[in-house]
């Protein structure tokens, strides 16, 4: 028997199966529907996680949902009525969505899964985030911080997680901030003002911040603050949060920070080649830097208050804000906690995991660390016989737009019998400057590619990184790539206060940035941001023996980026990987122990 957790309806619909505190499987709907941030009912994901766990819907003890829709509905009504009479459009759109579908979650789940509605448990959104962080950490005593845009009403929550007298975990809420006082919403509004997609491209704001100076920090501190009690304070006169996806800033925001960036206005920043830019572009970067700085200050203030309230040594941090690896680094370095755990998927997708963990813990009382490699391995075998029938020249007219039509290209595939042979061969490909697609085992849960669905290149050739950005990823130049490395290479490359710092949980899954030693930077230039930092993954040889062997054979860190094209989620199946390989200028594709190479 097990518990199924579900989140859907806003973005990143996800399903997860938990049994006795262990996450058996988790999968975002986007990974199967190929629609980034897919918010639809996660039927494909539910089937996938049940199949991975060897269960059917009839085997489920509970189905846990990550939110209490009726409470969220009160917030939606209030926020669309408050600006009356100028919110008719927002009111109409919201009411149609909520009264038409979103309010009736229990009915939809029961109908689609064919289960008894009594088995459905609704948990608060921040409660789910807190459970995901605390129960997923495996710790028995920890402070819990959750920050996202908004749940039902809560936007930020401070809590304390402990074992109760009966041995079952107990999460005690301490302080909460309600909508519209939301650090997440402010950060997303700045993201929208910078011409990026809110609730999607916050990482672009973070990346852009490194090119700016926080010249607007004083003004930004008027926008968001944290008080001595650990409550978030927002001056809401800077925003129209009810118009969330359509210019959420007010005229006051424009008076202070200037005109927004039109999305079509290209940003001239390059993480590999810093240069002076026009004042207009520099202003956008400066506002990004200011928002990032003040967000970090608020995060530290919340952490310090939480430390005082709990006295705990460990911090569990979740919610979309926990994806901000620069802020996480500051939390790690300047915060009051010894250890920080961020779950692999701290955003709304992970809330499905949290809801399931919470329902499961109430019965079983156990918890185990939630690790990332719990995604699907469905349809995993690559049919090598098919490759004999694939003729690349037949689809040379159908490559990715903008790539030249190729001619005379052949595909050759080789199967390697041992991991060491495979590692040596792929390391040789990397050394020769190949762009390598790497697909191994179960997919990662969460947004980071961690060596299960990754694209890899050698890290010391900026021209190669440029080719990757232009011919495979369509990636903006101001966004840096990340590095995967062995622990030995990490000791050589990363600037930490003590060698033991390398064992910090946040360095396992690219969750915190860290400085690279100046003398080592030229050897890994493609994986660095303009400030000399990187977002490292120190690879665990037990969890990922094949990836670790590859890094060992290569003898250096590798650039590791998500295996996808721009606008698409990470690939899941070998066929999807093969489609990206065929369409783009990728040179080598590794699926388990089979290597396919383009011969030109």
């Amino acid at each position: 028997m097990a518990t199924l957790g579900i989140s859907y309806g806003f973005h990143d619909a996800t399903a997860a199966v938990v049994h006795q505190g262990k996450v058996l499987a988790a999968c975002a709907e986007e990974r199967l529907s190929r629609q980034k941030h897919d918010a639809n009912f996660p039927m494909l994901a539910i089937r996938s996680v049940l199949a991975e766990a060897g269960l059917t819907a009839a085997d489920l003890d509970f189905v846990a949902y990550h939110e209490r829709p009726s409470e969220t509905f009160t917030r939606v009504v209030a926020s669309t009525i408050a600006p009356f009479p100028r919110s008719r459009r927002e009111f109409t759109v919201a009411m149609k969505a909520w009264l038409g579908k979103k309010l009736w979650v229990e009915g939809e789940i029961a109908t689609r899964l064919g289960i008894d509605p009594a088995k459905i448990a609704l948990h608060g959104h921040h409660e789910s985030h807190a459970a995901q962080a605390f129960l997923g950490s495996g710790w028995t005593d920890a402070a819990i911080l959750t920050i996202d845009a908004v749940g039902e009403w809560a936007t930020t929550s401070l809590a304390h997680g402990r074992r109760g007298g009966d041995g079952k975990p107990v999460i005690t809420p301490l302080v909460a901030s309600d909508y519209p006082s939301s650090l997440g919403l402010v950060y997303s509004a700045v993201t929208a003002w910078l011409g990026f997609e809110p609730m999607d491209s916050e990482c672009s704001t973070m990346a852009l911040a490194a090119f700016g100076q926080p010249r607007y920090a004083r003004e930004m501190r008027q926008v968001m603050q944290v008080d001595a009690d650990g409550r978030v304070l927002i001056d809401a006169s800077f925003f129209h949060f009810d118009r969330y996806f359509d210019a959420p800033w007010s005229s006051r925001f424009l008076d202070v920070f200037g005109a927004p960036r039109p999305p079509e206005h290209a940003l001239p920043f390059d993480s590999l080649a810093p240069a002076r830019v026009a004042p207009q572009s520099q202003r956008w970067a400066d506002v990004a830097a200011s928002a990032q700085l003040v967000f970090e200050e608020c995060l530290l203030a919340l952490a310090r208050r939480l430390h005082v309230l709990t006295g705990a040594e460990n911090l569990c941090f979740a919610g979309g804000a926990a994806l901000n690896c620069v802020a996480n680094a500051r939390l790690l370095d300047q915060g009051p906690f010894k250890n920080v755990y961020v779950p692999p998927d701290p955003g709304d997708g992970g809330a499905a995991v949290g809801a399931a963990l919470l329902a499961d813990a109430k019965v079983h009382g156990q918890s185990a660390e939630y690790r990332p490699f719990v995604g699907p391995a469905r349809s995993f075998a690559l049919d090598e016989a098919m490759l004999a029938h694939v003729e690349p020249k037949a689809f040379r007219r159908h490559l990715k737009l903008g790539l030249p039509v190729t001619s005379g290209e052949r595909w050759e595939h080789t199967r390697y019998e041992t991991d060491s042979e495979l590692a040596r061969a792929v390391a040789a490909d990397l050394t020769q400057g190949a762009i390598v697609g790497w697909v191994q085992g179960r997919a990662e849960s969460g947004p980071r590619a961690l060596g299960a669905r990754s694209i890899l290149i050698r890290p010391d050739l900026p021209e190669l990184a440029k080719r990757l950005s232009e011919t495979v990823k369509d990636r903006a130049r101001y966004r840096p790539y990340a590095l995967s490395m062995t622990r030995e290479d990490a000791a050589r490359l990363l600037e930490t206060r003590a060698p033991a710092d390398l064992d910090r949980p946040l360095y396992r899954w690219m969750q915190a940035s860290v400085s690279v030693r100046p003398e080592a930077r030229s050897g890994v230039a493609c994986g660095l941001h303009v400030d000399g930092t990187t977002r490292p993954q120190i690879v665990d040889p037990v969890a990922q023996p094949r990836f670790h062997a590859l890094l060992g054979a290569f003898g250096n860190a590798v650039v590791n980026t998500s295996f996808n094209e721009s606008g698409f989620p990470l690939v899941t199946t070998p066929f999807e990987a093969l489609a990206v390989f065929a369409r783009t200028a990728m040179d080598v594709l590794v699926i388990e122990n089979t290597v396919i190479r383009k011969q030109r």
Partner: protein
Amino acid sequence: MFLERLRIRFLVALAWRSRPRLLTTLRNFSETEADSAWHLLRAAELSADPAEKADLFGQVLEEMRHAEEFAKLYKDLGGGRMKPVKPERRPLVESPEDLWRFHVFCQVGEGAAATRFKNIHDALRDPELRALKKVLRQILRDEAQHVHGAAELAKASTVPPRTLRKEAGNVRARRAWDAWMRSGRHVTNAFGTLVLAVVYPIVGVLGRRTARRRLGMAPAGRGLAPSPAAVAPASRLVAGEAH
């Protein structure tokens, strides 16, 4: 057929003068092609025949490219970066034994899409839309091959021709039903908008004050001013100063 051609001519000549309508249509076209690519990919994964797999895989790449072409047109015609529609994806077939149904579905569906694209192509006169005409021409060539390929794959299955014909009839009926339901949803949507337009001022007048109080906002004014209670005295702030 004549009515459909007339409808398309009207659409192209009149409705597409409105740029937002044209952009919505392009976005839908892109979505249709992306959806086809997804279904073909799933079918390729299901198939046990390497040659069939390879054939379907080639079609996946074509449909992905078509989706991309429409998205580019959307951008070039002033729509900016296209936000995909993201409908719920439901597999058409679940097992390798049912793949023949998928091939019949493709034959009918791609055939209908090809006819529609051809009618649009023939009706396009606006020089500004020359790029769209060119893309449609390329796509028409591919779709014709897909229809032919799907028919061949369906025929190659062990299913009797009569069953294939019956399934084709079922697919057409389902498509007609889906179109009818879509129209129904448009009507429901319009009715919902009307009802909410009446409800809005009532709820707004009665609930605005409570809503603003709950949100901690000033009771009046067009902007979202913070209530005095929501702003802490500067001396109590622990973040947002002295850094």
